[in-house]
């Protein structure tokens, strides 16, 4: 901010102001530094806390396909695989849904729908993960087990992705976790897409409409291409949320850290394995679990940085600051 150039005050008062300003500056700097220290301490703790295991195993830690804490075999690959699979399902299901809702609400839907539907979608974001897990376990899983998965298996079972010949259909599994994650990230993606479409200059859309295109064409050929970077950013933010989601996944995924492409079968994610095993782990296992935390931290770090860069670029192009 601009410094005031002249002050017409008495010297004593001026001193008081100076001291107050210095203290104020120091206090705010303290707040900012605290924030920085929190991030640094997290990074430091994750690295030093897991080094005994990650440093010893090296890349084997990341590529090892066996996680068996009792045999002290710590391979992160099954949980990385589970994390990526569930997040990918979530993005395919929830991400596209989120984009579709916002595109529809901003451009196509009747005006009166915008507020109530946006409100309800935002409400979805306020519901805690644990409640999704509880509802998923009590209501969704029995429904999927009885009504949906047997059909899915009989229609697409031949691909190998939806059940193997003799696998039981439990209802808990990678697909269930991915679908619930998908619902959970809808609000994140929808909110960013909404904002990105709203910042597209009105003149561009009007120009397109004036040239004779209908609303859908204006949306698809002009507005979405303009905002595409930001929408991608929103999808990636959603991905980031899905990667780190813990409770709902823990309650729904079946918690077996195995490398399997059976989406109806159990799996585990980085976060869910930490959640189930951290509290009662032996020291070596805890070290390895912190290593999983480090992997998760790096994933979400990279994804957030990328997403925010994309969103910021669209905002800046539209003349909005920051």
């Amino acid at each position: 901010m601009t410094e005031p150039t002249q002050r017409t005050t008495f010297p004593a008062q001026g001193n008081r102001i100076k001291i107050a300003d210095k203290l104020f500056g120091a206090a705010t700097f303290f707040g900012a530094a605290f924030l920085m220290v929190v991030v640094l301490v997290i990074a430091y703790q994750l690295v030093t806390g897991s080094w005994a295991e990650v440093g010893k195993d090296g890349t084997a830690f990341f590529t090892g396909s066996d996680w068996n804490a009792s045999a002290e075999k710590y391979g992160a690959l099954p949980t990385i695989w589970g994390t990526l699979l569930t997040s990918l399902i979530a993005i395919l299901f929830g991400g596209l849904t989120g984009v579709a809702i916002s595109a529809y609400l901003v451009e196509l839907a009747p005006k009166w729908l915008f507020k109530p539907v946006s409100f309800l979608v935002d409400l979805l974001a306020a519901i805690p993960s644990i409640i999704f897990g509880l509802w998923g376990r009590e209501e969704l899983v029995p429904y999927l087990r009885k009504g949906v998965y047997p059909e899915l298996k009989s229609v697409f079972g031949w691909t190998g992705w939806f059940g193997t010949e003799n696998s039981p259909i439990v209802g808990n599994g990678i697909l269930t976790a991915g679908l619930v994650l998908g619902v959970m990230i809808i609000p994140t993606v929808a909110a960013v897409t909404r904002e990105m479409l709203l910042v597209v200059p009105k003149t561009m859309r009007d120009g397109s409409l004036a040239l004779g295109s209908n609303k859908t064409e204006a949306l698809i050929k002009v507005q979405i291409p303009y905002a595409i970077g930001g929408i991608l950013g929103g999808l990636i933010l959603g991905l980031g949320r899905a990667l780190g989601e813990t409770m709902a996944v823990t309650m729904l995924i079946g918690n077996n850290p195995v490398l399997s492409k059976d989406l109806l079968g159990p799996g585990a994610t980085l976060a869910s394995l930490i959640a189930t095993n951290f509290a009662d782990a032996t020291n070596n296992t805890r070290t390895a679990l912190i290593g999983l935390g480090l992997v998760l931290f790096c994933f979400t770090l990279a994804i957030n940085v990328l997403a925010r860069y994309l969103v910021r670029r669209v905002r800046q192009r539209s003349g909005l600051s920051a």
Partner: protein
Amino acid sequence: MKLSQSTLGLVAFLALASVLSGCGSSGSTPGDNGPGGPSASNDGGSVDVKGSSFVKPFLDNVFADYAQTSKFTVNYAGGGSGAGIQALIDGTVPFACSDAPMNDDETAKAKSGKPGEVLHVPIVLGTVAVVYNLPDVTAQLKFDAATLSAIFQGKVTKWNDPMIVALNAGVTLPDLPIAPVVRADSSGTTYVFTDYLSAADAGWKSTLGVGKEVSWPNTVRREQKNDGVAKGIKDTPGGIGYIELSYSKEGKIPYALIKNADGQFVAPEPEGATAAADKTPLPEGMKGSIVNGPGATTYPISSYVFALLPADMSKDANGAKVVDAIKYVVTTGQSKAAELYYAPLPKSVQDKATAQLAKIKVK
């Protein structure tokens, strides 16, 4: 002005950073406090203890009684056998409880670590029930080790598999996939179950083997603790799993009869564990398992729960009180066992346990 402002901030920042990094460096040293930290102490003091969750319902009750008479509180936090042994090795608990005797690696670590030599004292007997969820089957199912081994290896996948049908003549079994549910955490219950399968089935021993956690097949669902496994089975038609008897009783989940070494099918009732303990005496040092033991009424998936105490507790201010508390558990406390679905120690084992306790050096 700008300079001094950031100087002030920097001072605050450095102060904070040093505090936090101080926490950081000492925080990364291994150490493991019991839940709750220092617990509310009676006049006689208190200790926090970790270990097997299998035995927690029993110990909670017995230690509560003991605290009323002695004013000394033992806060049994559970957490699992593995965590208990780890805490004992680290010296953060005065003793621990485990369903599995300490293995060679743990014994060596303890010897070179804080507790030194560790004594095993049996405190109670328990059974692991094999439970299942078949809504349309009212008859009690029967299993033997070979069948269970095949099921939990993913080799037998249907409830109407000939192997199961052969054991259960007269029962109409549905054409339903079997959905095994096992423990997600490192567990003494898993240890006892796999110990049994290894003892009774050569195929199991050479593949998955014994452990508090083993490499389960891909299709097996895993849940946390006995509660989670019980819930998983209750929720899933076709489910099968192993839990401590009380969860089967309290949760009203039907359990199976298991074929013992004498060829008899036995229920996981406490009497089965007592019979197992009678027929299989513990070796010197008391480290031993009683799975798949001889005897017509023996339930084969039975186990002792051990208290693991350092042989030398003379440096521990609470040493004498701890030993006295365990003595209470192995004697008076045994009367609590039956109502909580555990089996009391046979008199001969009680005597051996008391003799074992007498060996411990206290101040």
